[in-house]
């Protein structure tokens, strides 16, 4: 039934060498020759091979044939359609052929790059092309769908990447919803004191941006909230946001902070102060918090736990405290989404031999950031955990939890520079002897290595060797009461034991603990390490596989502040580009119900996750709403009456492709030696 016996199509087949990428393993000339001869009866009128089909010359080749030979179908055997489908469709379009009458089959990713046996690869290429030819016969001229794009954008995560993205879009005059899980935006950058390599104060450069984001007319800041549900598709997402109760009426609150003074309940601040400092049960994480309104932390509030106290309420000059607030679900429509949810710090407790948690004076990098921060728990004094003693010797350990098959296999990329910064600060503020323990010193970006030079000049000791263990077990009087860092100094090949007062673990960056949930929520995929996957690692680092959802900052992989800002801006540029077009064009891959064939069994109705299929009770037939349909084709496969067909992936197209793929089985078996 699905076999055009004498196809009256004129098909052109184009085999790409891709330099030696394909031609190196596949005999492209032979493949082209074979297609011309063996697929003639299927309508192939011309088959060519060319060095680079995607080059303008290659495209012209196709366009010329379309015009001169009157091709009605085009098959290009080259790389993955995900790379160049658009290129060749455009070529067809330029030559006056409907772009959807072009089929791109992959003989590079799926053949030349993954096989070594030339004969086998060549035969497989032929099969793949035969499949493409059989399929293309059934292609239909299509016109891409256009849907209006909602001008608003959702930015998830109020760290520096998210703030940058939000500001860029807002400044261009479009509305942004900036959602932040914590009470204030600012992210990790707000916790730092200095930023490498220029050592300018983190707060000084960040807070203006925070204030801007908080006051910008085009930015709706939604802090202390989380995205719980995402529906729809590029141009028209419906998102649900859970606004956690602040128990503070932001209409009335003026952020005077009296409630925080009066609150009797001290709580260790595990988030902003990295567990090193205290906050109250009602709090803003830090003085320059944006928004300035505090939140009441229910778990630790005496009133919520015991029903007494209410001190904050008593003293609030504007009666802004409202214990009756409930969690709210906010619904909003946005056209595009930028994810900038950041990272979590590697937990060094997982490396017991480094003693973090057991040995008081072993600190994490984030703890040290707070120690050095003028607004931190010690007012910027670098002291041991007793809160008074100034360290005379400091050891800084690189690569903690990074570059290690037992923990994270990747390089966290910021630790070297961060450790150099720590070395500088420790030396500058305490005059301590500082030792840096590194495997490789990685300072590749602009004026980073110069900073390394500077720290060398300041007299920091650099020991090339990964620290083996940190203990308080002294072996001689010189080690009494110290932390002993045991390491091989690999440059002299000797084991050394270096007694220090303070150890700083430059812990690596990890995906957020809940990264899997995030990926699911937004329909994205994570790499094995847990970072979100970009559309292309080099050429499309802020886009994702899902149209309309972009990523920026550490959610895509470890990176420092400059890189995060760049990505925030890049993602914003992408968003703005789309908004400017007013509408998004979408692949016309949709399902349609043949009203005459439909028996009204309604099996398809429950199969559609987008509720795109409606049932007309009166006529007892189902119908697909093309605006909602995403083209997955599940209903097509399910329809017992074969009444539903999917454009671009119709039964005929797939069945014919199968036939094509299997066409030269027998011959292939003989041709290929085992």
């Amino acid at each position, binding site marked *: 039934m699905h076999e055009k016996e004498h196809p009256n199509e004129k098909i052109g087949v184009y085999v790409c060498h891709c330099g030696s990428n394909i031609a190196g393993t596949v005999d492209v000339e032979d493949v082209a020759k074979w297609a011309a001869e063996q697929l003639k009866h299927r309508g192939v009128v011309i088959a060519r091979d060319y060095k680079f089909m995607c080059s303008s010359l290659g495209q012209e080749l196709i366009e010329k044939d379309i015009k001169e030979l009157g091709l009605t179908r085009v098959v290009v055997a080259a790389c993955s359609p995900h790379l160049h489908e658009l290129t060749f469709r455009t070529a067809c379009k330029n030559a006056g052929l409907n772009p959807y009458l072009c089929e791109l089959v992959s003989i590079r990713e799926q053949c030349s790059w993954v096989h070594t046996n030339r004969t086998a690869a060549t035969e497989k290429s032929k099969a793949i092309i035969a499949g493409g030819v059989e399929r293309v016969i059934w292609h239909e001229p299509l016109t891409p769908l256009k849907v209006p794009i909602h001008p608003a954008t959702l930015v998830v995560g109020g760290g520096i990447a998210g703030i940058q993205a939000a500001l860029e879009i807002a400044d261009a005059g479009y509305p942004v919803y900036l959602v932040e899980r914590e009470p204030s935006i600012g992210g990790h950058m707000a916790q730092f004191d200095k930023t490498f390599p220029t050592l300018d104060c983190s707060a000084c450069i960040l807070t203006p941006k925070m204030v801007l984001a908080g006051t910008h007319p085009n930015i709706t800041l939604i802090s202390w909230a989380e995205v719980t549900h995402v529906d729809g598709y590029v141009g028209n997402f419906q998102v649900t946001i859970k606004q956690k109760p602040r128990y503070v009426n932001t209409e009335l609150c003026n952020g005077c902070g009296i409630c925080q003074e009066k609150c009797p309940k001290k709580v*260790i601040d595990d988030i902003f102060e990295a567990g090193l400092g205290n906050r109250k049960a009602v709090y803003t994480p830090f003085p320059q918090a944006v928004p300035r309104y505090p939140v009441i932390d229910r778990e630790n509030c005496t009133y919520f736990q015991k029903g007494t106290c209410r001190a904050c309420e008593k003293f609030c000059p504007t009666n802004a405290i409202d214990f009756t607030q409930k969690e709210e679900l906010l619904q909003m429509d946005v056209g595009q989404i930028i994810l900038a949810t950041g990272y979590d710090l590697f937990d060094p*407790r997982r490396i017991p*031999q480094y003693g973090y*948690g057991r040995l008081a004076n072993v600190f994490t990098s984030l703890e040290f950031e707070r120690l050095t921060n003028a607004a931190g728990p010690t007012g910027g004094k670098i002291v041991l955990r007793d*809160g008074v003693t100034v360290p005379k010797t400091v050891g800084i350990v690189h690569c903690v939890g990074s570059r290690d098959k037992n923990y994270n296999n990747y390089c966290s990329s910021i630790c070297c520079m961060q450790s150099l910064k720590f070395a500088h600060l420790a030396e500058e503020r305490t005059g301590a002897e500082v030792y840096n323990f590194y495997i490789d010193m990685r300072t590749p970006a602009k004026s980073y290595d110069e900073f390394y030079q500077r720290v060398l000049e300041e007299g920091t000791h650099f020991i090339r060797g990964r620290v083996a263990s940190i203990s*308080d*077990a002294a*072996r001689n009087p010189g080690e009494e009461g110290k932390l002993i860092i045991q390491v091989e100094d690999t440059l002299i090949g000797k084991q050394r034991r270096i007694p220090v007062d303070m150890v700083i673990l430059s812990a690596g960056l990890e995906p957020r603990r809940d990264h899997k949930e995030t990926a699911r929520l937004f329909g994205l995929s994570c790499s094995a390490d847990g970072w979100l996957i970009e559309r292309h690692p080099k050429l499309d680092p802020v886009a994702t596989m899902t149209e309309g959802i972009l990523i920026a900052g550490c959610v895509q992989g470890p990176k420092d502040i400059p890189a995060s800002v760049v990505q925030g801006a890049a993602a914003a540029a992408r968003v703005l580009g789309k908004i400017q077009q007013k509408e998004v064009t979408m692949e016309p891959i949709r399902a349609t119900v043949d009203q005459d064939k439909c028996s009204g069994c309604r099996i398809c109705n429950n199969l559609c996750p987008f509720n795109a299929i409606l049932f007309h009770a009166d006529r007892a037939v189902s119908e697909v709403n093309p605006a909602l349909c995403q083209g997955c084709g599940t209903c097509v496969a399910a329809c017992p009456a074969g009444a539903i067909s999917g454009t671009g992936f119709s039964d005929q197209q797939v069945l014919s492709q199968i036939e094509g793929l299997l066409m030269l089985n027998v011959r292939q078996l003989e041709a290929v030696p085992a």
Partner: protein
Amino acid sequence: MKYAYFPGCSLEKNALAYHNSTLAISAPLGLELEEIDDWNCCGATEYIAINRLAAYSLITRNLALAEKQFGKKDLVAPCSACFLNLSKADAYMQEDPPLAEKVNLALAEADLHYDGGTIKTRHLLHVLMEDFGLDAIKAHVTKPLKGLRIAPYYGCLIVRPGFLGKFDNAEYPTSLDRLMQSIGATVVDFPLKAACCGGHMTQLNQHIALDLLRVLLQNAADYQADVIVTLCPMCQLNLDAYQADVNRLFKTKFHIPILYFTQMIGLAFGMDAKTLGIGKELVDARRALAKIGVEVPPEEPPKKKRPSKEELPMPKMPEEG
């Protein structure tokens, strides 16, 4: 529960106390240990240094005998070195087919054959913790070791590298700690609990070995341990038999008896010292053990003064939740 049993050479004589105390506590727990008939030495750390195939054949002969005698079964080895060698051989018999093939060719000379993975070797501590559990052990405690300060010493091979899977943390294990607490003892923090006793270094290079031992003893002394509890004959031998040499060489005055964890369990079960082979240790345990049963208020851990108000909080540890 029934298990195949591989005592190992040490338990035959120098660690007979370990052997006896193991059997003693097995009875009440219902732990049945059936010795592999005509087992041979595991080769310790020495044989592998001379001839790889001979060494693996030597070890695997025991597994083959066990397979013949019991079929598929768990094998209990109280000696950490034997435990390591047996599980290592088993691991490579599965992981390295060419090696396995040759080993079986050799075993065939005595009509023996072994398929990797048939006999799972486990250390006595694993079995007590995983198959019986603390509650089962607690249930038999009649004389809790109240007030006795124990430094739990794991040594290397029971926690590292875990050829058949990790049983406890390789750097900072806690299973023995929990076991000792469950029988009423006070377990002191012992940072070097999984450090090395020097192994055969006591023979090859006394200075290296004695220094390692000194550091261990010092650490236990710093935390005011009455007893170091071991689960390996080699560790016991080194710490016990060479403690005098350590004192002589470094002019120290350590007197820390080294006992087997099975002996401690036995005491808690109310068994008499003699059956448990207590008294065979060179560093006399009488003074330390005198504390047990005597009502003494648990002394507060060493120099942990009240936190001053400047003091910054310590990070929460997982177990604290």
